[in-house]
Every structure is written in C-alpha cells, then in structure tokens.
C-alpha cells in the first residue's frame, strides 16, 4: 500500500534523512516515534505527496505521481491549517457531503458540543478571527476534515497534541473505529496513543536498511 524505497530528502541544503525505507500493508496500522526534529512530519508530507524526494521511490496505492497520491490520502497535520471560511467549509473544503456524514464527523471529532454553543453553529465564519479559536478547537476541526474525506490511507501527525485528556481519549477511540478498514501511519511522541497498532517503528530504525 505504502512503499518508500531508499528515500532521501533535504530542505534546500539541510539533509533530513537518507536511505529511508518503509513498507505499510493495506489496513495495517503503523505508529512512528522519534525525537523532535528527526523528520517525522517531513516523512508524512513525503508520503502525502506534498514534497518530492531527492532520491529514492515513493509509491502509494499504486501511484507514484505526487498529485495523484495527494488525492488518495487524508491527513491531520501537526498544524491545523484553517482557512478564513466557515467551520463547515473548513471541514468539507467545498465538497458536497451528505448532512449525516458531516454531523457524524463533528460528533466523532468532539466538535458538536462547542458548535452547539455558537449562534451560527457550523456556519460560523472563522475569517480573521481564526486566531480566537483555541488550539484544541482548531485541531478538532482538522480531525473532522480528515474524517470527512473518504480516503483509504490516513496519515496522522500528533492529531491530539492540543486536546485535553478527555477529548484525547474520545478522539483516539473515534479514530480507531473510523480506521478499522483503513491504512494508518500515526506519528506521535506518546506511544500510549498507539495501543492496538500492528507495528510501532522508531524513526532511526527506518533509515539505512
């Protein structure tokens, strides 16, 4: 499903890793841990087709073209990346989804209660007040967005880093249910979030093999 063969990557002159290989089978759940700055987010962005490797091959669900790969994956980035639009538009990104689906992902991402308190509900414009959202609210919108897109491959980069314990547990449980029949690569500093995963890999073990 996901195949990285001897991939190297540099930002301008700074090399992040060399000869990194990773194979993930269909429906496999893989956790990746490693110290801060070792290139975990960079790796997910490479898998998602956002960057081109300087060397090596990346193949995701049979695709090698980065733009096509991007269409096949869904991600929760480390930064929530909201746009000056309504909550609804930030979740659907302009695509038509059945109302039940949107309601369900809001429920799963623990957004419903908060949205219920807003006078304009899910149609509240985030606009230039997106800085007034809490980090957790923004992150939960990003999670709902990722669940709304119907992709077989889910990439998670510290998806609950801004959430409190209660929300973290609820969101992780929802993600577990949501990804039963999906392929997952989950980057985190907290191995306890990877319970039930098929494999937990250290970044350094992926390199030079």
């Amino acid at each position, binding site marked *: 499903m996901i195949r990285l063969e001897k991939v190297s990557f540099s930002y301008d002159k700074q090399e992040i890793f060399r000869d990194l290989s990773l194979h993930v089978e269909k429906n496999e759940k893989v956790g990746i841990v490693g110290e801060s700055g070792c290139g975990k987010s960079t790796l997910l962005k490479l898998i998602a087709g956002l960057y081109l490797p300087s060397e090596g091959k990346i193949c995701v669900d049979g695709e090698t073209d980065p733009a096509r790969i991007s269409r096949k994956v*869904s991600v929760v980035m480390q930064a929530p990346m909201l746009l*000056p639009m309504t909550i609804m*538009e930030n979740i659907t990104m302009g695509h038509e989804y059945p109302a039940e689906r949107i309601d369900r992902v809001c429920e799963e991402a623990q957004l419903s209660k908060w949205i219920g308190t807003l006078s304009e509900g899910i149609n509240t414009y985030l606009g230039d007040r997106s800085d007034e959202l809490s980090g957790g609210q923004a992150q939960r919108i990003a999670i709902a967005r990722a669940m709304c897109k119907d992709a077989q491959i889910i990439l998670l980069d510290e998806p609950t880093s801004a959430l409190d314990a209660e929300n973290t547990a609820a969101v992780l449980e929802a993600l577990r249910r949501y990804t039963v029949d999906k392929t997952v690569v989950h980057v985190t500093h907290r191995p306890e979030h990877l319970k039930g995963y098929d494999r937990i890999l250290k970044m350094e073990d992926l390199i030079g093999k």
Partner: protein
Amino acid sequence: MPVLKILLKRNRIWVFAAILAALVSNLSQMFYFVFVGKLVDKIAGRQTIEYSFIAILAVFMIANVVTVSLNHYIGHMTAEKMAHSLRMGYARKLLKKTNGENRSCDAGQIMSVVQNELAQADAYLGNTFFDIFSMTFSGILVLVFLLFQNALLTMTLLIPAILILVYVLILSKRMTPLVSETQNAKNRMNHAVYSTVHAFPAIRIFDGEKLAMHTFQRETTDWVRSATKLERRSALYNSLSGVLSGIPLLLLLLAGGYMVLDGHIMLGTLIVFLNLQKSLMGFIMNLPAWIGGFKIFTANLTRIEIE
C-alpha cells in the same frame, strides 16, 4: 499614550531640530524673495545698484540654498528616526505579548499589520510628515508678511482660496468612511492570501483549490470594489481642487496688474507676491490632502501598539 506622541517624545531632539530647520529655511527663503523684489524695483526705477546690495542678495541666496537643503536633510532624518522607533516599538510589544497575557498573537494578523499599517505609517513618515512642518511654516510666515506688504492684494488671494478650501474640505469629509472600509477590506484580503499560502498542504490534499480560489476572489473583489470607489472619488476631488486653485492666482494677476499700472504698488511688490503666493496657496490648497493623509496615518497608528 497615543503612538504618535510616544514617537515624537522619543525623538524630541530630532523633532525640535526639524521644526527649527523648517522655520529657518522658510525665513531665509522669504528674505531672499523680498530682496529679489527690491532688486526689480531698483531696476524698474532705474536706480543704481550698490555693491553692498548685491552682496547681501548673494548672502541670502547662499543662505537660502544651505538652509533649504539642511531642512530637507534634517526632516528626512527625523522621519527615519521616528519610523525606526515605530518598527522597534512594535517588535518590542510583540515580544512582550508572546510572554503571556495576550493570545491573539496569530502570524497572519502580525504579517497583516507589518504589511499594511506599519508599512503605510512608515511611508507616510518618510514622504509626507515633515514636509507638513515646512509647508505650514512657510504658509503662515508668508501670509503675515504679505498682509504687511499689501493687505488688499493679500485678501484678493486669500478669500477665494479659503472659500475653495472649505468646499474641498466638505467634499473630502465624505471620504472618511470609504477610507476605513477600504482598509478593512484590504486587511481581510491579506489575511486570506496569507492563510491560503500557510494552509497550502491542506488545500492540496483535500482538493480545496476551488474553495480557496473562491474565498480569495471574494475578498479581492470586496477590496477592489471599495478601493476603486475611493480612488475615483479622491481623483475627482483632487482634480477639482487643482482646477479651482488656479482662480486665486488669476485674481492676483488681474488685481495686481491694475495696481501696478495705476502706480498703486511697485512692480517689485507684485513680483514678491507672485513668488510667495506659491507657498501660501500650496499650504492652503494642500491642507485637505494633508488632513486626509494625516487621518489615514493616525488611523493606521491606532492599529499598531508599541512599547
């Protein structure tokens, strides 16, 4: 304390020097023109011109050149110093903010302030602010001087100018809401552009190009609409005041010409008037534009906090 006051206070020595330079350069310029007028009178009256007179004229001419360039230099240095205080003050405030109390420390917001308010206030300080001192001094000095020379001729110049000024002022009052509307639209647009760039990975993965373009277009259209309206109106007012500003000069030429022919005043006096009317008219006619610019400047400053 208002930002402008802090800036002036922090650079008070430079500001004082700039005011002084403006005063001195305008005085010297006025003396120079007066002596030119006297020279014309002497030539017209076929009087002999003493060496001492020419020497004094030369001294005033040189003093004029020196003080005008000094004024220019000090004015711009002061503006630079103030702009620097503004930028540094903003940076200091930001650093303090991230230490705690204020959480609206969003990068888009900061970029927007840096690109709009700060850049505009900076440009205003550099291009316009100290010319106002100079122009104001020369306007007032010249007015007093001309009144002493010939009150009637001064009034011929002044009264229509003031009438035109009032007219233009009333017109430009209607600009104020347009200015702030344009400013807000521009802020929204910049924010949209910034967050689109920032959220590009998400746009790509969730296939949101269409939505992002739509958002971007909406904000841009808003801005273009209010900006065109603002520009159209300000172009109209400016050309209107440009046309009208010719009227006082015309009246001066007519009335002054008759007075010279009647022997009521000397030709030199009319020359002095013609030379100096530029300063006076420049001051009066540009007043609305300055007030407008100053309003935008202070409006920009209210959005900037400094430390």
